[in-house]
């Protein structure tokens, strides 16, 4: 089982606009290197590396070293904590409304 980070770590990681842009570019590609991410990002490679570190610690991306390069890819389970709660309550309330409908029918006499 892949460990997921707490919601606040994920939210913090995605709160920074530059970091979010980096994350979005990783999402948009199969695998991508720091050099490729730096191109057209408007920030230095060092800054991109720092953002990647935060994203990695938040469990949003994984890295794969190969030769002189490190490839980054999205870890889909990264957003799981928030997805879990929201899906849980999405289902919860829809089901409860169905139960409420049944109950109201019973007591409306």
């Amino acid at each position, binding site marked *: 089982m892949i460990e997921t980070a707490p919601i606040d770590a994920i939210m913090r990681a995605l709160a920074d606009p530059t970091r979010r842009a980096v994350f979005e570019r990783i999402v948009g590609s199969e695998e991508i290197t720091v050099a490729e991410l730096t191109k057209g990002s408007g920030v230095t490679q060092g800054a991109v590396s720092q953002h990647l570190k935060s994203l990695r610690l938040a469990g949003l991306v994984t890295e794969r070293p190969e030769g002189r390069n490190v490839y980054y890819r999205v870890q889909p389970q990264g957003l799981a904590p928030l997805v*879990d709660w929201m899906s849980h309550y999405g289902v919860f309330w829809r089901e409860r409304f169905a139960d409420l409908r049944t109950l109201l029918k019973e007591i409306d006499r």
Partner: protein
Amino acid sequence: MSAVAQAFETREIVVDEVFPHAPELLWRALTDGALIERWLRMKPTGFAAKVGTEFTFQTTPAGPWDGRIRCEILESVPNRRLVYSWKSGDECNVGYGSALSTIVTFTLTPATGGTRLMMVHSGFELPRNETAYTSMSGGWKTVLGRMAELAGE
């Protein structure tokens, strides 16, 4: 856009339906402890539809979380509006059971043939991230849509 992405975008869950009954009856179902238990499937302890009243629901525990949902009535306007806070989870947990501080709002409005009940469960966020969320662009939607796909939603 998937339902999950939609929910993320707005940070709230909305269920909005019309029931063929009078607002008074819906209000009773929302504010009578025994009736709440029958449709919410959780027994409220200490419930009273009075602002400031604190009550709890007991649900499935997870890790260090005892499964207790702590609530407080924030607004109560008979037959019209009921708002309570909904706090659950523990900071040590992830996913289901992680710390959550949210608000549940029920709004009743007369509708053709009955009463419209809108439930909004809001606040799926941390207060300090409000600015970050507000600044999120359309690109965010795309990301979440793609994430949901990858996660096999």
